[in-house]
C-alpha cells in the first residue's frame, strides 16, 4: 500500500474526485426491485410507505465542489429549500429557509439532526460584526452518506415543538461488510469572485468629479473655473481629503486587496470494511480554503470513526465519533467598519498611497486622505482567528426483545469549543486609540441527548403491516462563555491580555435549556397499497413557564400507491399522498417567560440589580399547521420520474413584542399573536434521455413557488396593528402582504433640465419631486423569492462523464444597501471616500438623459433609500459542473488499485442576472440586502480519486 501511495502522491496533489463518481455508474442501473429507503430521523421508511414530503439527497448529490458545509450543497437540489450565503468567507453560515418564512421574530432556521440526535446549529462566531462560522462547517461532506430535508407536518411532527421550520436530517457513513476498501480524494482549486461588478473610480476620475461638484456648487457664485476648484476649497480652509496632495499616481487598492486564484486544497482519506458481525468506517480529512480577499482563511482537520458490532443474535452495538478542528480568520465584515477590507476595496480614497517611499505600509500620511484604515497593514499586523473544536459521540444499542420488537437506547454528546482571539495593533486601525487592545472569548456548548425507544412491527395476515414506535427523549444544552479584554500594549510582539497595561476586564456567562419528549409513531400499510401514518409528540421545554411547558404535536398522513391497482400498465410507480398536522417553533429566547432582574450592573463595588425582562407567563411556542398533498410517479421503465406537491403552511401564535404602558416600567412584552401563511407548489421531473450501456444522458428539473402572506398582527392599545418592521426605512409588514416587503419611495429618474434626482410624489407615477421627504413610500415587492429551482443533467460516454447543476431564483427584489455610501453625488463620496464607475454617467448639462444626477457638494438625497437601488433579484447560476474520467479497469489493474477517477470541476462558473443594474452578487442573505461581505466564489477544482 505504501508503494501505491507513493506513486500516487504527485498526481494526488493535482486532482480531486470522489467516491460518488464511481458510485454514479452503478446508480444508473436501476432495477425495479430496489426500493429507496428514506431516513426520516427517528425512523427509516421505504419510499412507498412515506406519506409526508421530504427530499433525500445521497452523497453524490451533495458533493458540491468548493462547498465547505453540506447546507451549501442543498441549493437547487431540494425543491422548496432556499439557501442564501450570508457571506462567501469560507465556513460562513448559510441562511436556510424551508418553505418560506414563517416567523416574525423567532428563528426561521430548520432543526438539524445528525445520526438521530438533534444538534445545535448556527453561528458560533464570537460577534455579529465578524465573519460567521457555521457549526455545520465542522462536518466533512465526505463523511456524509445522505441528507434528508423534511418539509411537511407528517415528516416533521416527530420533532414536535422544533419541527416548524423544517428538519434537515444528516446521516453519516458507516462501514460495509466485506473486504476493507480504501478511498483517497485529493483536490486543488482556484477561486475568484463569482460575480462582482462594482468597481471604484480611479484617482483621476474621482478628482475630475470632485472638481466638477465643487464647481457646480460654488463656481458661479465665486467666479472660478473648474480647474481651480481645489485651490478655491483650500483657500477657504475646506477639507479636500488630500486632493491637493495627490501625486497623480494611481493606486489600485482593489487589486491589492483581492486575492486572485485563491487556493483551496482538500485531502480526504477513508477506509471502510467489515467482518461477519462487525463493520467499521474511518476517515481523515483536511481542507484548506482561502478567501478571494486577503485575510480570511479556513482550515479544517476532521476525523470520523464508526463501528458496529452484532454482540449477540439479539444485541447490536453501534458507536461513532466525529472530531474536527477548524481555524478561521474572520474579518470585520458584519457592517461598515473602517477595517472591513471590502469597505476599503470600494470606498478607499484612490489618492492615498498604500505604501511609503521605503516600501513600508503607509499608516500616517494616509490619514490626510481618508479615515478608512489601511487594511493591508491591519490585516498583516492584527490577529483575528476563531478556532472551533467539535466532538460528537453517538452510541446506540439495539436489543431485539422478540421477533420484530426492538428496544433501542441511544446517547449522543456534542461538544463544541470555540476560541476567538482578536488583537488590534497599537499603531493603526481600531487599536490605535487604546494603544492596542486584545480580547479573547472561549465558549463551550455542551449538548446531551438520550433516547430510549421501542419499535414493533408485525403483520396481520399477509396484507396488513403495522409499524409502531414509542420513544422517550431528553435533551440538555449548556452554554458557557469566558471573556477577557485588555488595552495598552507596551511593546510590539506582545499580543496577549497578560501584557495589557490598562482596562483589563473579564466576564463569564452561562445559559442552559432542557427538553423532554414522548413520541409515538404509527405506520400502517395495506398490501403495499394504502399507507396510513400518524405521529404524536408530547414535548416539554424549559423555555416556558410552569404549566405551559408541555404541548402536544401531531400529524396524520395517508398515501395510496395507485400503480398497484389502476395504472399498473402506465406507471412503475404512481402514488398520491397527503398529510396534515401541527408542529411548533420553540426558537424563542431563554427565560423570556419570567420577569427577571439583571445583575450585571455594579454600584460602587456592590451588587446592583435592575429590571430586565417583563416576562409573560403565558408565553408559548409558535405553532404551525401544514396541509400537504402530492403525487409521485415513475414511468417508462423508470426512465421518467416526477413529483408534484402543494403545501399550505399556516404559522400562528407568532411572538411579537406588544407595547406596554411605560408606567409598568417596561416598554414591551412578548406575546403569541401574529400569523403568517406560506403556500406553494413544488414540482420535479426527470428523464433518462439516453440509457445505453456506454452512453447515458439524463436531465431533471425542479421548481418551487412560494407565496408568503401575513395574516394576523398583534394590535396595540388603540387597536392598530403592530408593525414588526416599524422604524425601517426599507421594509414594512402589514396584514395581507409578505413579511417585510420593500416599502420605499419610487425613483423617477433625473430631471433632464436641472439634473436633480426625482421621485414620484404619490409613489407610483405622475408628479415628481426632488424632495425625498415629499415622495410617498410605496410597496416595491418582496425580498423573498417567489420561485426557486434547479436543473441538472448528467452524461456518461464510456468512461467520461459530465454533470451540471443550475440553480435559479426569482420574483424578488434585492436592495444595494451600500449604495448610500458609494453612489452619493456629494463630498461624502467624491471627497472623503470613493464612488463607483456609474457616477461617470452623471448629468452635466440640460438635455442629458441619465440616471445619475448633477454633482454637488450639497446633499442631494440621491443615495437615500428609494427604489433607485432596489433591483430585480432574479438570477440563474451554474452551481457546479463536473467533467470526469474513470480510468478503465484494464489500465488501473497495472497500478494494482481498484479504481481511479480524474475530474475537473467548476463552481459558479456562470451567473446570469436579470437586472443589469445589479452589479453585486445576486445571492444575498435571507433579508435581501446586498452587503459588503466576501462574495460567493467561482472556482475551478482539479481532483483525483483512488480506490484500493
Amino acid at each position, binding site marked *: 500500500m505504501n508503494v501505491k501511495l507513493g506513486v500516487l502522491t504527485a498526481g494526488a496533489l493535482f486532482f480531486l474526485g470522489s467516491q460518488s463518481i464511481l458510485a454514479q455508474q452503478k446508480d444508473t442501473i436501476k432495477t425495479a426491485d430496489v426500493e429507496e429507503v428514506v431516513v426520516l430521523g427517528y425512523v427509516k421508511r421505504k419510499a412507498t410507505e412515506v406519506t409526508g414530503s421530504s427530499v433525500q439527497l445521497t452523497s453524490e448529490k451533495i458533493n458540491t465542489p468548493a462547498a465547505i458545509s453540506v447546507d451549501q450543497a442543498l441549493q437547487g437540489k431540494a425543491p422548496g429549500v432556499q439557501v442564501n450565503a450570508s457571506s462567501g468567507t469560507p465556513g460562513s453560515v448559510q441562511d436556510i429557509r424551508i418553505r418560506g418564512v414563517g416567523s416574525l421574530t423567532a428563528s426561521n432556521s430548520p432543526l438539524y439532526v445528525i445520526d438521530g440526535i438533534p444538534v445545535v446549529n448556527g453561528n458560533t462566531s464570537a460577534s455579529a460584526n465578524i465573519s460567521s462560522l457555521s457549526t455545520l462547517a465542522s462536518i466533512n461532506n465526505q463523511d456524509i452518506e445522505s441528507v434528508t430535508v423534511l418539509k411537511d407536518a407528517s415528516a416533521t411532527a416527530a420533532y414536535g415543538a422544533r419541527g416548524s421550520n423544517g428538519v434537515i436530517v444528516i446521516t453519516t457513513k458507516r462501514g460495509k461488510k466485506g473486504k476493507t476498501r480504501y478511498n483517497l480524494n485529493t483536490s486543488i482549486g482556484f477561486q475568484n469572485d463569482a460575480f462582482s461588478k462594482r468597481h471604484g473610480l480611479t484617482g483621476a476620475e474621482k478628482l475630475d468629479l470632485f472638481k466638477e461638484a465643487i464647481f457646480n456648487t460654488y463656481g458661479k457664485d465665486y467666479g472660478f473655473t473648474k480647474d481651480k476648484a481645489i485651490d478655491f476649497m483650500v483657500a477657504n480652509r475646506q477639507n479636500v481629503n488630500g486632493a491637493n496632495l495627490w501625486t497623480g499616481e494611481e493606486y489600485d487598492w482593489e487589486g491589492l486587496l483581492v486575492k486572485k486564484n485563491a487556493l483551496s486544497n482538500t485531502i480526504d482519506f477513508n477506509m471502510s470494511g467489515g467482518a461477519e458481525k462487525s463493520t467499521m468506517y474511518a476517515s481523515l480529512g483536511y481542507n484548506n480554503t482561502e478567501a478571494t480577499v486577503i485575510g480570511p482563511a479556513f482550515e479544517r482537520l476532521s476525523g470520523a470513526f464508526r463501528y458496529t458490532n452484532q454482540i449477540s443474535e439479539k444485541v447490536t452495538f453501534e458507536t461513532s465519533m466525529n472530531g474536527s478542528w477548524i481555524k478561521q480568520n474572520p474579518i470585520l465584515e458584519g457592517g461598515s467598519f473602517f477595517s472591513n477590507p471590502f469597505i476599503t476595496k470600494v470606498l478607499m480614497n484612490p489618492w492615498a498611497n498604500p505604501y511609503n517611499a521605503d516600501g513600508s505600509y503607509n499608516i500616517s500620511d494616509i490619514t490626510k486622505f481618508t479615515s478608512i484604515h489601511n487594511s493591508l497593514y491591519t490585516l498583516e499586523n492584527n490577529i483575528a482567528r476563531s478556532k472551533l473544536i467539535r466532538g460528537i459521540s453517538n452510541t446506540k444499542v439495539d436489543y431485539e426483545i422478540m421477533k420484530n420488537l426492538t428496544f433501542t437506547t441511544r446517547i449522543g454528546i456534542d461538544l463544541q469549543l470555540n476560541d476567538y482571539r482578536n488583537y488590534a495593533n497599537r499603531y493603526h486601525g481600531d487599536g490605535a486609540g487604546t494603544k492596542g487592545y486584545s480580547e479573547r472569548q472561549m465558549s463551550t456548548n455542551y449538548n446531551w441527548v438520550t433516547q430510549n425507544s421501542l419499535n414493533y412491527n408485525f403483520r396481520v395476515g399477509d396484507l396488513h403491516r403495522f409499524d409502531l414506535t414509542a420513544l422517550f427523549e431528553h435533551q440538555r444544552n449548556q452554554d458557557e462563555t469566558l471573556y477577557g479584554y485588555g488595552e495598552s500594549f507596551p511593546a510590539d510582539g506582545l499580543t496577549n491580555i497578560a501584557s495589557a497595561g490598562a482596562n483589563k476586564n473579564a466576564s463569564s456567562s452561562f445559559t442552559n435549556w432542557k427538553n423532554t419528549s414522548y413520541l409515538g409513531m404509527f405506520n400502517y400499510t395495506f398490501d403495499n397499497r394504502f399507507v396510513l401514518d400518524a405521529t404524536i409528540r408530547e414535548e416539554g421545554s424549559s423555555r416556558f413557564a410552569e404549566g405551559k411547558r408541555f404541548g402536544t404535536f401531531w400529524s396524520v398522513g395517508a398515501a395510496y400507491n395507485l400503480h398497484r391497482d389502476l395504472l399498473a400498465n402506465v406507471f412503475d410507480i404512481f402514488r398520491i399522498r397527503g398529510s396534515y398536522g401541527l408542529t411548533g417553533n420553540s426558537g424563542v429566547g431563554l427565560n423570556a417567560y419570567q420577569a427577571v*432582574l439583571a*445583575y450585571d450592573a455594579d454600584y460602587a463595588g456592590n451588587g446592583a440589580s435592575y429590571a430586565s425582562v417583563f416576562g409573560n407567563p403565558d408565553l408559548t411556542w409558535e405553532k404551525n399547521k401544514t396541509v400537504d398533498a402530492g403525487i409521485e410517479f415513475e414511468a417508462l421503465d423508470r426512465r421518467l420520474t416526477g413529483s408534484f406537491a402543494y403545501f399550505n403552511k399556516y404559522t400562528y401564535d407568532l411572538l411579537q413584542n406588544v407595547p406596554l404602558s*411605560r408606567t409598568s416600567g417596561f416598554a414591551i412584552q412578548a406575546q403569541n399573536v401574529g400569523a403568517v401563511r406560506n403556500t406553494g407548489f413544488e414540482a420535479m421531473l426527470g428523464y433518462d434521455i439516453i440509457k445505453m450501456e456506454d452512453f447515458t444522458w439524463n436531465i431533471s428539473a425542479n421548481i418551487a413557488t412560494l407565496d408568503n402572506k401575513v395574516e394576523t398582527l398583534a394590535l396595540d392599545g388603540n387597536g*392598530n396593528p403592530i408593525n414588526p418592521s416599524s422604524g425601517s426605512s426599507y421594509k414594512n409588514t402589514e396584514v395581507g402582504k409578505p413579511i417585510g416587503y420593500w416599502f420605499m419611495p419610487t425613483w423617477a429618474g433625473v430631471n433632464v433640465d436641472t439634473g436633480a434626482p426625482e421621485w414620484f410624489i404619490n409613489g407610483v407615477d405622475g408628479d415628481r419631486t426632488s424632495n425625498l421627504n415629499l415622495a410617498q413610500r410605496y410597496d416595491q415587492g418582496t425580498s423573498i423569492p417567489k420561485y426557486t429551482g434547479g436543473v441538472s443533467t448528467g452524461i456518461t460516454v464510456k468512461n467520461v462523464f459530465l454533470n451540471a447543476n443550475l440553480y435559479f431564483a426569482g420574483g424578488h427584489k434585492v436592495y444595494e444597501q451600500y449604495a448610500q455610501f458609494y453612489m452619493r453625488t456629494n463630498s461624502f463620496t467624491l471627497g472623503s471616500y470613493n464612488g463607483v464607475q456609474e457616477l461617470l454617467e452623471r448629468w452635466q448639462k440640460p438635455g442629458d438623459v441619465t440616471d445619475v444626477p448633477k454633482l454637488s457638494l450639497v446633499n442631494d438625497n440621491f443615495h437615500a433609500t428609494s427604489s433607485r437601488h432596489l433591483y430585480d433579484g432574479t438570477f440563474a447560476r451554474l452551481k457546479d459542473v463536473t467533467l470526469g474520467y474513470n480510468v478503465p479497469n484494464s489500465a488501473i489493474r497495472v497500478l494494482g488499485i481498484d479504481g481511479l477517477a480524474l475530474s475537473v470541476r467548476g463552481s459558479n462558473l456562470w451567473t446570469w442576472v436579470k437586472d443589469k443594474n445589479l452589479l453585486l452578487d445576486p445571492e444575498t442573505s435571507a433579508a435581501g440586502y446586498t452587503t459588503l461581505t466576501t462574495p460567493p466564489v467561482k472556482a475551478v477544482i482539479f481532483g483525483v480519486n483512488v480506490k484500493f
Partner: protein
Amino acid sequence: MKFINKKTLFLAAASVVLSMVSSCERDYLETDPTDAVSEQLASGSIENINTIVNGMHRNMYYRQNGSQGQNGATGIMIYMDVLGEDLVFPATGPNWYVSTIRWLDNANASSGNLFYPYDFYYEQIRMANIVINNTPNVTGSQAEKDRLMGEAYAFRAQSYFMLVQIYGKRYVAGGNNAQDGVPLRFDNSFDPIPRSSVEEVYKTINQDLTQGLTLLTGKARSNKSHFNANVIKGLMARVALVQGNYAQAATYANEARQGFTLMTNTAYKAGFNNYTNSEWMWGYKPLDTTSDYFGNFMAYMSRNYNSSQIRQAPKVVNNLLFNKFASTDVRTQVIDPTGKHTELNLPSTYLKVPYTSQKFLSVNSGGTVDNSVSLGDVPFMRAAEMYLIEAEALARIGKEAESKVVFTLLEKNRNPAYVTTTATGAAYITEILTSRRLELWGEGFRFLDLKRLNMALDRTGANHNAVVTNNVLQIPANDPRWTWLIPQSEIDASQGLIKQNEL
C-alpha cells in the same frame, strides 16, 4: 450464562428508561437564568432587596435606551439646562442635544428624547414599588428594612416629582390643580392606567417623602449617593417651593442643609467632581469600572474631556448672565470670557470660544484633572441650593430681612467682596434668582425654574448661535411646549386611557 447476560442487559436498559421517565417530574425542565434573577426570587430576601435599591442608585448614572446622551438621570439634568437660556451651545458639534435646544423634542411625541425621562422614571418607580411592597415580608433587621423602604419612598417621590414637572402642566399655588398629571402606579402590574391630576400626584409625592423621612430619620448612610433625612428634607423643600408653600420650603431647606457647610472658593474651582465636598448633599460617583465613557455627564459638561462633543461644542455660559456678576465672584472665575482656559492647556483641536465654563472638569480615579477620562462625581443636591430656596421662600412670604441674612451667607462665600443688597421686593427676588441661575448652572434646574415661576424663555441679546438654536430665542410662558407631550408609544399602549397634552 448467556441467558442471564441478555436478561441483565435488558433489565439494565429498561431501568434506564424507567429512571428517565420517573425523573421527568416538572422540576426536570426548570432552568433559571444565571445572569439575571426572577423578580419573585429577587424580592425574597433583604440582601436581594438591597441590590434592587443599589440598582436604582446605579440606574441614576446608567445608559438608557442604548443612547449615550441618555445617561441615567444625568442626561435629564442636561436637558433641563439645555432648554433654558443660560447654557449656550457655540456650535452644533456632533449634534447631541441640538434638537433639545431647539425645543423640538418636547413637542415631538415620537422623539426618543421625549420618551427618555418618562421611561427612566417609571423604571425607577417599578423597582421602588417592588421594594416597598416586598420589604415588609422578608426577614431582616427592622433598621435595615426601614432604610431600604425609606430610600424606595424617596426614589418614588423624586421620580413622580420629575415626571409631573415635565409632563404635567405647572402647579398653580392656590388652584385646584385638576389638570392632568401622570399615571400613578403603586404595584408591578401592567394594565394601562389613566393620568391622575397634578394635585393627586403631589399628594402622593408628599406622602412618600413623609414616609421616607420617618424611616430614614436617624439613619446613617454609607456615602452621599444614598438618601438620608437631609436629602429627603431637601426634596421636600424643592416640592414645597414648586407648590408655593414657601413657609414650609424655607423650614425644610434650612433643616436640610444642617451639617453641610459651604465650600471654599478653592474647592469651587476644583471642577465639581468630588462628592465628598462639604456642601454636596447628594451625588453619584461613576467609577473607572462602571464608566459610560462618552455617555458620562462629564463627557458633555466638562471643559476638558477629549471627546468630539467637547472639542467641537464646548459648553458656554450666557454672557448676559456672566456680566451680572462681579469678577470677585468665584462663580465667574470658572468662566473664561476669552475661552482659552490657559491653565488647562487645552490642545489646539479644542474649539475656543468666549464664555466657556470650566465649572465641571473630568478627573481620573486619582482625582487629578485628566482629559482622557470622562469621570467625575455628579451633583444632585448641594447646600447652596438650600440657601437659595430658603432665601427665595422667605422673601416671598415677606420675611425679607431674614432672607437677606441667609442670602448674604451664600453670596459672601462666593464673593468675599459681596455687600448685602439694598434691593427690595421683586427686584430683590430677581437677585436671588439670578444668583440661582449661575450657582446651579449645568445642574439641571433652569427649565424647571422657568416653568415653576411661569416665566418666558428669553435668549435674545445673548451669545446664542442662531444656527444652533434654529432661531428659537423666545418661548412665551403660556406656550404649550412647557408641558412635554406624553410619548406616542405610551398613548398607543394605553387603550385610550391616557390623554395627550395639547400642542
